[in-house]
């Protein structure tokens, strides 16, 4: 290795230019003439595609051009001299424009001298102001368009002829075919000093170089052949393509030189054009892609770069990483939201570099002495000279003696280390957060449930990735800005994205709604899992036997931070009048000592739920992320313990309703159907009056939909009258834990109208949806109204309509995800280089201002309150409370 490889250089300028045939030959290490690669003994043939002068790919050999070994020799280009010129596929559009812009005989650009002088001035001006290549190219395109429109050469008077382009590479002049040779000759005639009119810098390019006379052959390092296990050689796709080019080139040359008929030469010429075109881009429209013997299309130059699997997106923008792990996730409600459970085998594979100093040398030696197979051990030591030594059971004693200050020990991942944890698709910044490690038994990553919403994770087999941080700066950043607790409030809407879900909400609701009482054993059990340290407060109730009871509200109050003053309606809130009776309005105030008390209302989704929890939001905002994390950990544990103590289950019999209710529901639905029938009759009789802006048919549909929708709601209302808060399913729906009242009314009442494309079901046979109905029946049943409930079961026709609606939903989600994914990608590509500076302006990487103040108001939505920097209402509230 030579020194120059280590000297960093700054790129000052990049210039794109065309390669001239002379340049191609000059940079070529050898001319390639034979299509064969290796001879019978397996040695590369001289002047073949695997010529040893093109670089080395086999270890041990030296490059014939530069004398360096594998990995040191960068490879060297060769070249093929084409028997006849061919068009470069990438420039066809430009060639067409240029051919049209220049005179077909004298070769001058068809613009008047005054116009040329103006263009000259403009070009100089652009160069002075911005030197933006886009400015040049868009201006040059307009100048070219002007010249293309001129019908007669202002210099020699030749009239222009119409040029058409037969995709991909055939040019015709008023029907007569132009050969690449003719095109090249015409382009050659354009004088150097006129090239700027075509948008070409004559210092670095000539238009005729877009018609190839020689083809560079990339070094073998670019197209390495692989030796299969069987000993056979398998060549790269590019090599295959170059073989094709060479074969045809050779035949074309022979035929031409021996004076073969024009027809044959032309055919071969076209074939050569085809091979060169597909060599550049095998997906050129208008020609069939070149295929491998197996029928697979070849991956040629453009395919290597393009698309998701191309060089840019796959290798340059995206790289594979070390120190990462992936496995299935499962829940653990007893670790903190900040933590992640890591299985021991993973903890012993991932390592953290630990620089040995005089303070930690004993610790470091401890890791080394335990070696790679005992948990808090180490896998490698790195000497101060950079040499990595693997620790094995056999050498750990000798290594132990060597470890001194200055060594780096790569120790196993341990409790408390901070790692990055991620679930794909990574749609927002909360998709990758910093977690503290907890090494555990088992084979899965463990996460606490409140962090599921930001990751959008569940445990039906989801896998997640973990990245072990290697540097001190990264570790500090992860701890300070990426830790889970720093992301409780979302920058999207300023509310919490991390919060209680499912059973946490049912549990805290059951515990805190109305006056749920617990005896001392239960109360202590619930509190034992929280961070609360202190005695039980005064009991709320003492019964005749002297047994003391505490209310759920009082127990819950113990985990609240001090100094809270907040009130809001809970999820079960209906009306002001009923809120007292229902206990549905949450009031939390603090006493003289500052301790907070839950005075009324249940703690449900509106308080602690992810996306909705006002209480979580308030605590994080006023008491900081650390207290917020502690509160979330405490609430979820209290809720889980409470729900386990009280017991909670649900089944389909929860949707049972009394016979009389069923009777009433069916009457309501029958009535609605009858009403629909009348509407249809009116429609058929021409008595229906159309709504403004709607046709008669549309009016009918609207009326019917409205009637049936109302009937479904009525049925649901009747059903829910029998489903009170004693019902577990109702508790879950009303408290916001899971499901909705609509789900319940569909189970016990009626499923309702099925829709495809937002309309009643219309498709099927002529004039009817299914053979079960009469032709032109517009009634409720015939167009997809499902009268039955899920509990009762669906009739065959209803089942069919329901499947139609269900299928539309599935297709919609599938289509939506792919479409929104692409939209997101475009959005991110457009925004990725923007950042907010310390003066609150938003600028891109070239320093252009995008916004003069971030979001017009300079407020971080995650820190402000509903887009205000300060929560005025809250401040007033607090002052008023204090005044009383």
């Amino acid at each position, binding site marked *: 290795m030579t020194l120059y490889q280590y000297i960093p250089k700054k790129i000052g300028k990049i210039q794109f230019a065309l390669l001239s045939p002379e340049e191609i030959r000059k940079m070529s290490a050898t001319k390639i003439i034979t299509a064969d690669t290796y001879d019978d003994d397996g040695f590369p043939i001289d002047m073949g595609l695997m010529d040893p002068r093109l670089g080395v790919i086999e270890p041990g050999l030296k490059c014939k051009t530069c004398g360096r070994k594998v990995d040191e020799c960068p490879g060297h280009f060769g070249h093929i001299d084409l028997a006849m010129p061919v068009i470069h596929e990438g420039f066809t559009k430009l060639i067409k424009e240029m051919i049209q812009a220049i005179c077909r005989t004298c070769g001058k650009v068809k613009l008047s001298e005054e116009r040329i002088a103006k263009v000259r001035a403009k070009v100089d001006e652009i160069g002075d102001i911005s030197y933006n290549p886009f400015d040049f190219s868009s201006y040059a395109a307009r100048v070219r368009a002007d010249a293309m429109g001129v019908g007669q050469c202002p210099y020699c008077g030749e009239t222009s002829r119409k040029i058409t382009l037969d995709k991909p590479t055939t040019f015709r002049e008023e029907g007569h075919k132009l050969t690449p040779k003719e095109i090249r000759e015409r382009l050659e005639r354009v004088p150097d000093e006129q090239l700027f009119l075509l948008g070409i810098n004559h210092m670095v390019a000539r238009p005729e170089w877009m018609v190839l006379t020689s083809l560079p052959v990339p070094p073998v390092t670019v197209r390495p052949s692989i030796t299969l296990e069987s000993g056979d050689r398998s060549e790269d796709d590019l090599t295959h393509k170059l073989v094709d080019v060479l074969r045809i080139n050779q035949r074309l040359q022979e035929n031409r030189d021996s004076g073969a008929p024009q027809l044959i030469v032309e055919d071969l010429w076209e074939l050569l054009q085809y091979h060169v075109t597909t060599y550049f881009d095998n997906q050129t429209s208008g020609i069939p892609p070149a295929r491998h013997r197996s029928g697979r299309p070849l991956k040629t130059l453009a395919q290597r770069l393009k698309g998701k699997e191309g060089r840019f997106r796959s290798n340059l923008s995206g790289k594979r990483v070390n120190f990462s792990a992936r496995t299935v996730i499962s829940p653990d409600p007893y670790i903190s939201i900040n933590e992640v459970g890591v299985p021991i085998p993973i903890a012993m594979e991932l390592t953290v570099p630990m620089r040995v100093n005089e303070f930690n040398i004993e610790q470091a030696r401890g890791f080394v002495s335990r070696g790679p197979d005992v948990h808090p051990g180490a896998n490698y030591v790195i000497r101060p000279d950079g040499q990595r030594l693997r620790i094995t059971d056999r050498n750990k004693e000798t290594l132990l003696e060597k470890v001194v200050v200055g060594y780096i020990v790569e120790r196993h991942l341990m409790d408390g280390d901070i790692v990055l944890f991620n679930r794909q698709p990574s749609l927002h910044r909360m998709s990758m957060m910093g977690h503290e490690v907890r090494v555990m038994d088992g084979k899965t990553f463990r996460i606490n449930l409140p962090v599921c919403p930001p990751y959008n994770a569940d445990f039906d087999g989801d896998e997640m990735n973990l990245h072990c941080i290697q540097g001190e700066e990264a570790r500090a950043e992860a701890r300070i800005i990426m830790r889970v607790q720093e992301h409780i409030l979302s920058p999207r809407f300023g509310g919490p994205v991390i919060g209680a879900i499912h059973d946490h909400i049912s549990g805290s609701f059951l515990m805190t709604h109305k006056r749920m009482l617990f005896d001392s054993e239960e109360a202590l059990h619930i509190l034992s899992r929280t961070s609360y340290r202190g005695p039980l407060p005064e009991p709320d109730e003492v019964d005749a036997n002297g047994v003391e009871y505490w209310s759920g509200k009082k127990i819950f109050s113990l985990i609240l931070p001090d100094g809270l003053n907040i009130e809001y309606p809970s999820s079960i809130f209906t009306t002001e009048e009923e809120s007292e009776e229902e206990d549905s309005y949450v009031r939390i105030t603090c006493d003289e000592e500052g301790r907070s008390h839950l005075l009324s209302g249940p703690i449900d989704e509106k308080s602690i739920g992810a996306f909705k929890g006002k209480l979580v939001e308030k605590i994080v905002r006023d008491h900081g992320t650390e207290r917020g994390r502690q509160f979330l950990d405490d609430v979820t544990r209290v809720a889980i313990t409470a729900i386990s103590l009280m017991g909670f289950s649900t089944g389909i019999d929860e949707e049972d309703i009394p016979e009389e209710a069923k009777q009433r529901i069916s009457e309501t639905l029958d009535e609605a159907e009858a009403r629909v029938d009348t509407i249809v009759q009116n429609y058929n009789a021409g008595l229906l009056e159309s709504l403004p802006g709607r046709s008669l048919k549309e009016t009918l549909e609207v009326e019917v939909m409205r009637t049936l929708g109302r009937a479904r709601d009525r049925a649901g209302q009747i059903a829910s009258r029998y489903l009170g808060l004693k019902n577990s399913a109702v508790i879950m729906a009303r408290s916001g834990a899971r499901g909705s009242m609509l789900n319940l009314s569909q189970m016990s009442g009626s499923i309702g109208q099925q829709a495809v494309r937002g309309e009643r079901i219309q498709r099927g046979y002529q004039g009817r949806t299914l053979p079960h109905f009469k032709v032109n029946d517009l009634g409720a049943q015939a167009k997809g109204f499902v009268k039955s409930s899920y509990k009762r079961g669906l009739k065959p026709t209803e089942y069919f309509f329901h499947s139609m609606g269900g299928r539309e939903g599935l297709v919609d989600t599938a289509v939506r995800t792919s479409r929104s994914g692409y939209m997101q990608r475009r959005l991110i590509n457009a925004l990725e280089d923007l950042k907010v500076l310390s003066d609150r302006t938003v600028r891109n990487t070239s320093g252009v201002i995008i916004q003069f103040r971030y979001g*017009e108001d300079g407020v971080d939505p995650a820190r402000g309150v509903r*887009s205000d920097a300060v929560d005025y209402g809250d401040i007033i509230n607090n002052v008023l409370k204090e005044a009383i």
Partner: protein
Amino acid sequence: MPKFNVMANHLVPRHSVMTHDEVEEMLSTYGIDRTKLPKILINDPCARAIGASPGDVIRIERKSPTAGTSLYYRIVVEERSVP
């Protein structure tokens, strides 16, 4: 055809051409030169309505529900620079 004044519409924010001194002051507060300003085309209806010419800087005063009034500046250009 009667001439339509876009500036009269209540949804169109106030556009005004800045004086040279104002521009210099604004540029120095942001520590930038003219090339770093957002652009507005000379044939933009608002730019035409206030009679701006290339090189002028236009101040746009937008009403914002959260920020009261927010200021934005654009430099008048003759043509698009990116294709």
